[in-house]
């Protein structure tokens, strides 16, 4: 009888611990925003970190390869992989 009671209590306590652990907040993933800049005349492409004021279609100077117009072609966010 005592053994049955202890077994039931052990089950209830371990269930509560597992539920409490599951409901803990997920770890926050680190993200990085990338701005992709392409030349409108050749296939030159470069990426850099996003800076305020960037928007898709913004002109970013001259292409170092052909002198054509450099335009922001994409801005996206990617997750930074965790260091092992």
């Amino acid at each position, binding site marked *: 009888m005592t053994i049955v009671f202890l077994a039931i209590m052990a089950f209830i306590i371990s269930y509560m611990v597992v539920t409490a652990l599951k409901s803990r907040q997920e770890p926050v993933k680190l993200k990085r925003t990338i701005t992709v800049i392409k030349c409108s005349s050749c296939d030159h492409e470069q990426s850099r970190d*996003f800076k305020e*004021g*960037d928007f*898709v*279609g913004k002109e970013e100077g001259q292409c170092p390869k052909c002198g054509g117009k450099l335009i922001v072609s994409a*801005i*996206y966010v990617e997750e930074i992989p965790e260091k092992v």
Partner: protein
Amino acid sequence: MDGSNDWASTLLVILILGSFLLNFTDIPQKMQLWRYSSYIRKKIIQLTEIEDEGRRKVIKYLNRLNVENPRKVLEGFVDNFFLISPVNIEPTDIIKRLRHLIRNRDESIRRYVEENIPNASLVQRQNAEVLLEISSVLTLINKIVKHYFQLGVKYNNWILMMQLALELQQVVKLAKAYDDAMDAFMAGMPIGDGAGPLVAFYLKGDAKPVRIAKETIYYETSLDGRKVYIIKAEGPGSTVGWPGEAVEKLVNMLGGSVSRIITVDAALKLESEKTGEVAYGVGAAIGDPGPEKIAIERAASRYGIPLDAVVIKMSNEEAINSMTKQVLEGVKKAVEIVKKVIRDKVPESGSVIVVGIGNTVGIA
């Protein structure tokens, strides 16, 4: 008396008493109510923290725009500017009434922001409008959760508490997504919902924009001998424009000689679907309450123009947050699909209208 039977009779007594307790008292229901209400209380604290964080972000942004009393501007907006739906038991001209109410509301918000943030550019004011709206939504979510929680406590309604507790994980996740979305609008970054405008941007080439409706532009370009008219909202500020009115105007301008209308938009994915998947179908891919969508459908059906839809799949959180790489890959796939549709289904020397539906924040 045989001692070995004691445990059996004890067990029997426990079973009978337990059965009475479960079936003839409300102790189990009270225990459930207590369990769920303590869970909901913890989540309400989390929601309040998210709401406060959202308010701090709005105040920080308004401070950057040199607003005199940002807290007062925020308080004056939140809880106000609600919209009462038009009467629907009499559906005659309901679209006209709904359009009128929506545009009234948008105009009031615009005037409120202009009066209170006079020294900001159009882009900054458009982004401020969205930030104020998000703050309003976070306050509303918190209020609704507290409303159902207090109703459940007041009437000892453990079923209502259970339903609320089971939904809350999704609600908190949504509130967190709205809070994170504020960072995108504060920085003026493209969001997932900008997939449609980004497709339009990639198709337009070097064409120059022409204003066709409020905060809406179109480009005229060509693809393999077909004339391509591309409509999108006017960025890089946060706006969705009036794409329905734009399509209507453009189709009328062209006298109805349009071979096809293709709408491109973000769509909610199912749990088993991957972000960035692209699907192709029929109809107006636009998630507005009705006026813009019906304008596109009417323009197409009046002249018998086939109406195609290309959608890029993503979750609700991805749609309102900064654009991810998977969504960007989906946009590139969608561009190729639109080009294929134009080449396969639009005759040479024919015209096609491509509409990039969505919020154009961060996309010129």
